[in-house]
């Protein structure tokens, strides 16, 4: 695959590993948060950790939209399908997430709910066109990468005057989440982990550009390197972060120059702004309420807003008391610090956000990395 395989080359990886080993200051350690769940998955899947110096620690951030989707939102979707008979469409990642009452979207389907997996929001729109007598609801999740496609279908639905299509909007925003990690009130409770910098998300940045990260560098004095998705990209980005830290710099650097620029995709930003507006606050599973961190559908498109159309009442559902996801998402604890990890909480039976999708810290560690902590694994 062109522009993919070259960025996974083992020989180049070894050389990057040597450069990293030479670059780190032996007198200190480094902690970098990779915000994006896709990056967490890539680190685990390729075993990149084995190629990093021991003094570099990667902390896994909350940038996994399936992980941070609250149970209460999934309950709303299941309710629409089971009780209102809608065709409920969403992405594959969400289908297995356990919600209330022992249900998940998949289990609800087994009970007779019409729940369909789609690969694109356009598929959901097409279902609405081909089933004019049925109501179709699209459960929209994702960060800014995934939001413009949702905006496009909403705009298209309005243009076509569809009477049977709506979106249950659970889109969340990246910069607000990073801010929340750096300055939320709970920081005092959990303790801060001194984060030396951030590996910024690749594909979100294609849409929003590199500019939104500049406050983190200037106000919080944390270096940010926007990194491509492939393992070589990540290794180079970590090298760039190490150098910034050594030099005492705090800048936003762009490693993913082949797809990201400072302004981002203006067309995508425009359609998002046309269709969506900021929510005052939104619950993130594991993080609690986060201000200005999520989107809702503008009044002009209210006819396509499932929350309005069905007068939905959101009910928050707390996680297990011993679930350590909050601390893990902030990088203050590791999966193996959690009593539930690997025992009660496994990918088959996830108790909290970090285990729910394959890029959550706990799931990634369990699936790809738990051989490193043999004594912790249940017999």
């Amino acid at each position, binding site marked *: 695959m062109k522009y993919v395989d070259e960025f996974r080359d083992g020989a*180049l990886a070894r050389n*990057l590993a040597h450069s990293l080993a030479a670059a780190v200051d032996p007198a200190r350690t480094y902690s970098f948060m990779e915000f*994006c769940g*896709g990056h967490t998955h890539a680190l685990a899947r390729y075993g990149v950790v084995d190629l990093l110096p021991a003094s570099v620690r990667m902390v896994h951030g909350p940038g996994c939209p399936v992980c941070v989707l609250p149970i209460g939102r999934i309950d709303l979707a299941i309710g629409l399908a089971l009780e209102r008979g809608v065709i409920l469409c969403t992405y594959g990642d969400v289908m297995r997430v356990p919600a209330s009452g022992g249900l998940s979207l998949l289990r609800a389907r087994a009970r007779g709910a019409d729940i369909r997996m789609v690969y694109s929001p356009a598929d959901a729109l097409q279902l609405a066109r081909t089933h004019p007598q049925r109501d179709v609801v699209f459960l929209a999740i994702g960060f800014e990468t995934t939001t413009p496609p949702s905006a496009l279908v909403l705009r298209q639905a309005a243009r076509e005057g569809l009477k049977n299509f709506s979106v249950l909007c659970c889109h969340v925003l990246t910069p607000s989440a990073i801010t929340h990690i750096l300055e939320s009130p709970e920081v005092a409770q959990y303790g801060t982990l001194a984060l030396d910098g951030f590996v910024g998300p690749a594909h979100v940045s294609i849409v929003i550009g590199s500019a939104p990260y500049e406050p983190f560098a200037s106000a919080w004095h944390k270096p940010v390197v926007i990194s491509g998705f492939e393992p070589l990209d990540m290794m180079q980005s970590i090298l760039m972060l190490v150098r910034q830290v050594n030099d005492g710099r705090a800048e936003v650097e762009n490693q993913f120059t082949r797809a990201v620029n400072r302004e981002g995709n203006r067309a*995508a930003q425009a359609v998002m702004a046309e269709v969506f507006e900021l929510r005052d606050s939104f619950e993130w599973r594991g993080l609690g309420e986060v201000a200005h961190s999520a989107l809702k559908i503008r009044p002009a498109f209210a006819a396509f807003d499932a929350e309005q159309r069905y007068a939905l009442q959101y009910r928050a559902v707390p996680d297990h008391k011993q679930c350590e996801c909050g601390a893990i998402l902030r990088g203050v604890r590791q999966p193996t610090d959690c009593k539930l990890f690997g025992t009660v909480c496994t990918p088959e039976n996830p108790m909290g956000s970090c285990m729910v999708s394959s890029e959550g810290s706990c799931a990634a560690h369990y699936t790809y990395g738990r051989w490193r902590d043999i004594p912790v694994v249940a017999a």
Partner: protein
Amino acid sequence: MCLALPARVVELLDADTAIVDLAGVRQQVSIALVPEARVGDYVIVHVGHAIGMLDETEAQATLALFAELARGTA
């Protein structure tokens, strides 16, 4: 944040839709977000939509940088 792949535009179907190719796999995607895409361009595809263009010059530059690191000159 999410799974997005670089694919080559092989056919424009209309102003908003194109066929892209990734290692011989063809998929119809929306190019409404990258209206400037032309046949032969590489776009980044996510959930059936092209969300950005891939700059091939920059891609080569990044690869060259990796190789330079190998030689210890970067």
